[in-house]
């Protein structure tokens, strides 16, 4: 029987091996095979882990060296690499932050002897990390399968127009293997981060994900890509520095065993521990930089330059979730304190502001990026409210957001390759050109915030919990109203078709795309239907591990009415099915005449009208972006300064 320990080591080491294989295997078919195989195995691993349930695991020696020393040497090697990149790209900030981190680590190892501390088992796999593992491995592997095909097409399209200075054209051979290497190895790093209980190990995996993100954003090697990669690197290193500082503070003032999160959760809380609370605040700050919360959102928006699988995997489903995972993991530490309220307000504020900013964007990926930051803000707000219901809401939101947002990013990537542009305006009439993709898009967008799907259960629980904090409730209420605006505005632009255009069947889709897109869409719908069993099996155990009550009472009062908000979900999907079927019955194209569009009586054809000087003109449509009121340029400075203020208060309140 495969024991839990083997599953964990497999989860961490297999991606590394697969990545290496991808890097060496020159042919596309080979890489495709490797990715499919590793995807299936990883998914099996995570499900295996779920079946075995929570356990601790302290890895033994390897080749005579204890793991700690391996980790710390790898850490220093990584910092050296980052320093090298800083020097090569002449980016002062990266150099300074790398040096500062190195200094902190040297102090941590040499002076405090942190390196050798064994505060407890290195890996503690509890329900929360199992959920994260499931998300990472299943959604992550689907995205990698998509990525293999995508990067192939991406290269054919870009080999033509990439700017002359790019390394690509000068260097012989394509960069696909290199891309796949970093993409797959990232999964291993994330698994490691999620299992780690020893903060020092988590710090190492934290740095690895930052490095992977730098490599992947800079994939195209155009100036813009490199500039954004550097910006992502220095902001994340800022987070890394905060993390390192927290380590030092923890060991310096709390003693060695505070390095283990379990120990921290049990002993960390309580009034006396101001320094521990400061360390937790620093860790929360690190989490915030990683999930690109308000003052630090510029790197995630810049990262949209990267190929779409990167945005889908790193910048929406998994990597940015690491920051939120950390904040959620530490929630029991700051329960009931002012820090908790400030975090709630910071999260709510980000949720509202980024939703409003998303309205004024016409570049599809930037809208998705803003919406990701908004949803992360909502999750952090739930973590900040810190009641069992809010924590379960946060976990539900994490699961559903990963699936839906990943799906939307992949769809956008696929559409971008077909129509060659990311602008929402060029996606007009997509329903007639690419019907299957539009259906998947509709499922994706509807599952983001509307009733039958899980996200809404999360939002419901968040609102119920936020009722005691009116300011957070206000942010959530106004934010959720604005989310409806920019999602439906976008979906509406896609549905706009000319009358009489008969759909000529579904558009061709490669097997990789089909697997990932339809897989994720089916996943979103399935999770929507099975939301109550999902909550009972996954979320409630995770919450009841650290909190008194399980949070949500899933007993149903009647067929349709669940108890306090949770509703029986299957009637919803039956209703949607009835609607689909009756629409197909009532509307049969032969009987219904396709009417020309109303153009004030001046139709020169069914869609164009005769205007001044007798020329026939097509009406042009565009959605509203309110650039005047909500323009990014106008708001970002004020909003960033407000956010910095909140961060100051966040750090300050722990000390006072």
């Amino acid at each position: 029987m495969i024991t839990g320990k083997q599953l964990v080591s497999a989860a961490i080491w297999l991606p590394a091996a697969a990545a290496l294989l991808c890097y060496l295997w020159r042919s596309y078919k080979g890489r495709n095979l490797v990715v499919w195989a590793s995807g299936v195995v990883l998914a099996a691993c995570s499900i295996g882990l779920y079946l075995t349930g929570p356990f601790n695991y302290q890895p033994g020696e390897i080749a005579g060296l204890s793991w700690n020393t391996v980790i710390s040497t790898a850490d220093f090697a990584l910092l050296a690499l980052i320093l090298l990149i800083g020097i090569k790209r002449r980016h002062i900030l990266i150099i300074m932050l790398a040096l500062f981190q190195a200094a902190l680590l040297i102090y941590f190892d040499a002076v405090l002897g942190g390196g050798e501390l064994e505060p407890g088992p290195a890996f503690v796999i509890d329900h929360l990390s199992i959920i994260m593992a499931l998300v990472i491995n299943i959604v992550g592997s689907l995205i990698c399968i998509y990525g293999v095909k995508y990067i192939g097409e991406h290269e054919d399209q870009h080999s033509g127009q990439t700017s002359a200075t790019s390394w690509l054209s000068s260097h012989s051979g394509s960069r696909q293997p290199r891309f796949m290497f970093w993409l797959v190895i990232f999964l291993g790093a994330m698994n490691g981060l999620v299992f780690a209980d020893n903060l020092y190990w988590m710090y190492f995996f934290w740095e690895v994900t930052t490095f992977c993100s730098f490599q992947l954003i800079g994939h195209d090697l155009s100036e813009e890509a490199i500039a954004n990669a550097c910006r992502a690197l220095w902001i994340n290193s800022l987070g890394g520095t905060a993390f390192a500082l927290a380590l030092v503070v923890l060991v310096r003032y709390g003693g060695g065993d505070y390095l283990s999160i379990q120990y921290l959760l049990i002993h960390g809380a309580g009034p006396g521990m101001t320094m521990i609370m400061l360390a937790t605040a620093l860790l929360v700050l690190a989490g915030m930089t990683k999930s690109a919360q308000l003052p630090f959102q510029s790197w995630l928006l810049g990262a949209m330059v990267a190929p779409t699988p990167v945005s889908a995997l790193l910048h929406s489903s998994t990597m940015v979730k690491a920051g939120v995972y950390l904040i959620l993991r530490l929630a029991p530490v700051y329960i009931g304190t002012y820090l908790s309220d400030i975090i709630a307000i910071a999260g709510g504020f980000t949720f509202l502001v980024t939703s409003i900013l998303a309205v004024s964007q016409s570049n599809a990926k930037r809208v998705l990026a803003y919406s990701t930051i908004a949803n992360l803000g909502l999750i952090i707000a739930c973590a900040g409210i810190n009641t069992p219901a809010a924590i379960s809401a946060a976990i539900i939101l994490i699961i559903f957001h990963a699936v839906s947002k990943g799906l939307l990013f992949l769809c956008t990537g696929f559409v971008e390759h077909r129509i060659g542009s990311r602008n929402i305006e060029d996606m007009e009439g997509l329903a007639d050109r690419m019907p299957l993709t539009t259906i998947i898009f509709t499922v994706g967008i509807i599952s983001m915030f509307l009733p039958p799907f899980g996200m809404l259960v999360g939002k419901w629980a968040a609102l119920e919990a936020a009722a005691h904090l009116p300011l957070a409730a206000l942010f959530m209420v106004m934010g959720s109203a604005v989310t409806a605006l920019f999602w439906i505005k976008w979906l509406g632009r896609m549905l706009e078709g000319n009358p009489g255009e008969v759909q000529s069947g579904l558009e061709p889709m490669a097997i990789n795309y089909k697997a990932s897109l339809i897989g994720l869409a089916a996943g979103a719908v399935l999770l929507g239907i099975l939301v109550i069993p999902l909550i009972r099996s996954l979320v409630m155990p995770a919450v009841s591990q650290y909190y008194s009550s399980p949070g949500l009472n899933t007993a149903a009062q009647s067929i349709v009415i669940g108890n306090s908000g949770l509703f029986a979900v299957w009637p919803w999907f039956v209703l949607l099915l009835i609607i689909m079927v009756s629409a197909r019955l009532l509307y049969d194209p032969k009987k219904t005449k396709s009417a020309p569009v109303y153009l004030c009586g001046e139709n020169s054809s069914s869609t164009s009208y005769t205007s001044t000087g007798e020329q026939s003109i097509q009406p042009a449509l565009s959605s509203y972006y309110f650039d005047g009121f909500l323009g990014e340029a106008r708001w970002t400075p004020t909003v960033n300064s407000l956010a910095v203020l909140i961060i100051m208060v966040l750090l300050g309140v722990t000390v006072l």
Partner: protein
Amino acid sequence: MGMMKKSRIKSPWLLHYDGSSCNGCDIEVLACLTPVYDVERFGIINTGNPKHADILLITGGVNQRAARVVRNLYEQMPHPKVVVAVGACACSGGIFHDCYNMLGGIDKVIPVDVYVPGCAARPEAIIDGVVQALGLLAEKTNKEAAV
């Protein structure tokens, strides 16, 4: 089917378009909507959209550019539909019938069901015309053939 026919008579939605009229008849058509004549008693609403309308009420003759618009409006209206020509110009081109830009009455462009004579046809005459048109509306079916 009796109820359907009855409801067609009881709720005729009207689209008013001013072909090339001197707006005398248009004012009388609008006067029908106002409190003193109030055609809403018969359920008549002035919708501005051919897709919602049953009765196309045209005032004034048709000049060469308006012919295209009148034809478009007529085609965009779903069956069953009737056309009422209001005023001397709509019936036969009236005083402008031999101007260089005028095609003549509405029947030069689309089939007309009821002619309401008078130069500035009175609201009462227009109400008579519409009531007469309702009788025709009930007979028509909503198929293309029986136009």
